[in-house]
């Protein structure tokens, strides 16, 4: 399939010697927003980190644009058109907003391209324009999240991996940020693989989704299919309710 941008094939990964993610097959097609949902500790974040080479790969492959990128270190993955926003520690607190964005564009030599990319980020997140000379560490949680996503957008990645971009944000700000993701897809042409705690919120926004439990994919389909699936409640049971939480 030519439209497939990212794919994992029986990917296993973790941190020390015990795999947390087991033989996972997920894929993202061009222009898609795909959600990874599941209870706490299901390995959603670990899956993203394994894909990006921040966590260890124990087996399987990561395919980006028909190329096997399993063994590429994170900096090389960024170079070939992938982008990643970690859940925590996703800004440079000791650098200004503008410098954070510049670091996102570290691989770009052309000053004009950097300026254009920064302009794009400021259009997506207008609030950042006035904060460009402020240290990222002194911003609010919501503003930091904008910087984090903005930094990753600077290279105009073809696919963006987002690890719980709304965690810890007030509901109103969280919903705003998720709406922006759709804008990012449309304006910057970025495909998105997003991990979200709030399953309903994420699936409503996404084209497709995967439910991960104990490091394995147990359910996949469109947002509607997953949300109306009779087993969904049971899969989340005891860990987290699927509803209008938070």
């Amino acid at each position, binding site marked *: 399939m030519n439209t497939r941008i990212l794919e994992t094939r029986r990917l296993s990964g973790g941190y020390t010697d015990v795999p947390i993610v087991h033989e996972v097959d997920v894929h993202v097609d061009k222009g898609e927003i795909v959600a990874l949902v599941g209870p706490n500790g299901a390995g959603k974040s670990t899956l993203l980190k394994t894909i*990006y080479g*921040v966590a260890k790969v124990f087996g399987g492959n990561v395919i980006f644009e028909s190329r096997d990128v399993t063994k590429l*270190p*994170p*900096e090389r993955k*960024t*170079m070939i058109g992938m982008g*990643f926003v*970690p859940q925590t*520690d*996703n*800004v*440079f*607190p*000791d*650098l*200004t907003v503008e*410098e954070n964005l*510049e*670091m*996102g564009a*570290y*691989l770009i030599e052309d000053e004009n391209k950097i300026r254009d990319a920064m302009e794009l980020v400021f259009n997506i997140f207008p609030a950042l324009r006035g904060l460009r*000379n*402020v*240290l990222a560490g002194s911003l609010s949680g919501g503003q930091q999240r904008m910087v984090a996503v903005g*930094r*990753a957008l600077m*290279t105009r990645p073809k696919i963006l991996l987002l690890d719980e971009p709304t965690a810890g944000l007030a509901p109103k700000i969280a919903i705003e940020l998720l709406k922006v993701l759709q804008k990012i897809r449309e304006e910057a042409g970025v495909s998105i693989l997003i991990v979200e705690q709030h399953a309903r919120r994420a699936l409503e926004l996404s084209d497709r989704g995967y439910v991960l439990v104990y490091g394995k994919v147990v359910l996949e389909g469109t947002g509607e299919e997953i949300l109306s699936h009779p087993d969904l409640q049971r899969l989340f049971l005891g860990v987290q309710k699927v509803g209008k939480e938070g």
Partner: protein
Amino acid sequence: MPGTFFYGSIGAIFDGLLVGSLYGLMALGLTLIYRVTKIPNFAYAEYITYGGYAAAATAGLAAGFKGAAIGALFAILVAAAIALASDELGFKPLWRRGASSLHLLVASIGIGLVLRYGLLGAIVLFFSTRYLEASTPQRSVALVQLGGIVSITSAHVLAVSAAVVLAVGLWFMFTRTRIGKAMRATASNPTLARISGINIFAVRRITWLIAGGLAGLAGFTYAYYNFVNPESGWLMLLWIFAAATMGGFTFLGALISGIILGLAEQYISFLAQYFVGTGAQYSPIIALAAMFIVLLFKPEGVIRMEALAVRRA
């Protein structure tokens, strides 16, 4: 003699500027390593000593200025190579295994010991003496004479100009250039730096080469007006750390603090010598007292972090 005190004071101030600029120059490299890798590097003093010996050993290859330039170049290269080696073989493997700043500090003392007594051992082996002092054959020359006793020498000009130019240069690099910002990004969040496409290992190597080069230049300057022995760097380490700490681990702060310390050391020694006839041996107390007082009243150092200066810019 009414003029003695006056000219003595002026002389002490000029010597304070020389020594202080040298402390500042040395503290710059220590600051750079600390800012990027979070290592309080006690082995740093040894890079200076090796630089001094490298200068003394090579400056005689040519006469005059040309030889001095060769000496300075070799001092920079040797010290940079040793600094890089100490990271590649010592600090980096520990850091990759998750060593904290405290672990790395202790490791740096160990690396310092190996370098210091390795050099001493080599000297004993090849020259059959423990006390091989060395200097460049080109000696610092008086450029201006004041009152027959005070002179401004070429070492003064070299130390002060090198310290000022390099402090401003490093500040500029850190706040305005791509590599400097990458260094700060690497220090601030190494994982995110990698995700951003920064080769943090290359950034780290460049950091050590620059810091080592600074130590080498300081070593050359020292050997140019003084004599190096295997413990020269080690004996200055207290002052270097005092300058870096007082400077809040900023480049301009390190320069200013180094000069303050050098002036205090030389002038108070002069006063003690003039009025009491002794007292120069107590000068290290001045470094500690100055550092204590600054940290008590201005814990962030004599100037604020440069990152904040960007905010106002």
